[in-house]
């Protein structure tokens, strides 16, 4: 990865996005880093580390459409990247990586490692489908086990119970509002 001069990083609603940008800036000090971010992303958060921020990623809360994905891919491919970085190794992001036109693609994972992504589309697709079929069969086997057998409980004698209700404010349903 020594001859890398242009790096693209795709924003994900992930705790390690700014960490990843800093890591790339430190690891490739001479490379031009382009961040593909949502329009609402505050430029100042990563402006010290990237050469350019392109607001072409749909907002995390908004529904994803095929048209948006097409535009995003077109924008990414415009820059003829040497390295394209995503933050999760999901099938969707692997597909984006495969179609990014970059010479190399990597995933910067939550552990802080840059892991190469294999760009074998057909292999990934077949692997994904086979895994899903196996997963479905396994799930339903377990479902039958759990729902068709019963356990007679033997509670721990003398154990205290955690109070069921803890008062929470009306709007603490996992949404954050500044």
């Amino acid at each position, binding site marked *: 990865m020594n001859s890398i001069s242009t790096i693209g990083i795709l924003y994900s609603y992930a705790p390690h996005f700014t960490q990843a940008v800093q890591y790339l800036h430190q690891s490739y000090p001479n490379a031009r880093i382009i961040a593909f971010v949502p329009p609402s992303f505050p430029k100042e958060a990563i402006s010290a580390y990237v050469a350019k921020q392109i607001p072409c990623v749909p907002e995390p809360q908004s529904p994803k459409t095929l048209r948006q994905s097409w535009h995003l891919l077109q924008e990414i491919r415009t820059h003829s990247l040497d390295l394209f970085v995503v933050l999760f190794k999901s099938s969707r992001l692997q597909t984006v990586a495969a179609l990014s036109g970059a010479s190399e693609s990597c995933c910067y994972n939550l552990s802080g490692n840059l892991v190469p992504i294999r760009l074998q589309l057909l292999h990934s697709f077949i692997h*994904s489908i086979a895994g899903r079929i196996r*997963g479905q069969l396994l799930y339903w086997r377990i479902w039958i086990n759990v729902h068709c057998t019963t*356990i007679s409980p033997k509670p721990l004698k003398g154990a205290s*119970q*955690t109070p069921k209700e*803890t*008062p*929470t404010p009306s709007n603490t349903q996992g949404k954050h509002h*500044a």
Partner: protein
Amino acid sequence: MLTEITIQQGTRIALVDLLFAWPPNGGADVDLYHVAKELSEQGIPLTLFVVQFEGIAGRGQVCPADLPFPVELISIPKNTKHHHAITARIRNAVDAWKPNAVFLTHGYALKAHVALALAHYPLISRYYAHELLCARNAHRFKENAPCSFNYFSHPQECRQCALTHLRSEIKSHERQAWAQDYLAAEAYQKEYYITAGKALDAMTCIIVSNETLKLELGEYQHKAVVIPGGIDTPQAIQEQEKPATHTKTIYMAGRVDDPLKGLDVLLEANTLLKKKRNDFQVVATHFDPRLSKGNFVATGWLSHKEALQYYAAADICVVPSIWQEPFGLVAVEAMAAGLPVCASHIGGLRDIVVHGETGYLFPPGDPVALADFLDTLLTDSALRATLGAAGRKRALSLYTWKNIVKKHYLPLLKDILVQSHTNKGMQPHE
């Protein structure tokens, strides 16, 4: 002195961890690292056995040379998925080292099987959160409130809840550690309920993080010991001169993006407080800086070291958790930094913060009570200084790793080893 006894008698302690990674993946890794390091520095011969699952990222990712104590990696091949085969490998590795006692640290459902496989040793088992009582995950938190069920009292409900929660992970082929353990241990099976109970029987000692967790162990309370987590001995704090009119900072640190941590409670308290005064700001270590708005500042992603530096500029620390927080590291770090702490009256936070002495405890999820305490503290700088100083003293005397190991782990190990030597049924493995 235990150290002398153990060295003379060649006492060996095997630590076995099913999830350890270094650099750490979480608080349990940090806890284990410090305990093993301090015990090792006390001259106790130990080896940390780390189970490394081939092809699974994040579990057992350790470079032994990076750690200041001996580490042995137990490799589990990719095709070894059943608990019988996994526990056999662990048992063989541990037996070959011939320890006098085994300290079983972090693990999920597989831990019960491993405990039974190592039951021929005096066995200490450490639980870091609610993994013993919750089948779904280590949080025991459901529908925005702590769950009142536990696996031993409501096994049927708990295993159905676990299956529902893990459905998408089981169906996909990208599974996290909890789902991996759930499948390998066959924790969905009826028989696992018996295994879990037998594992508790096999343990000589069960370490938990707070008094509430101990009470929930019921008939096993006599085996339970409360040992909190700890902090590194902090550097002397350089008092920063803050002008009387400066904008005061209320700081919330940690994984504040996790709904369990109660950021919403703080934000609601902030809204209430803003109606009364405007001489403060709220700073939180949220990874997404887009949340910053008005007097609320989301710092963006910070390393642990960077997050610690924010304490120096802060005036008050808030820990508004709405789950049964097992320990509450952030509260201790803030106290060590000389800050008064406003924390939820829940879980381990109740043991850490002394109400009215080192800060205030408010009902979990109550923004009105939190806003009142914050108002009091923002108004009275002398009170902040008094509570902060008392907090620092408490944190340094009770929660540094050196003191934790000296006060809790060394006496515990001594008791276990003496017991094993006097009890023929618990003779050290020869």
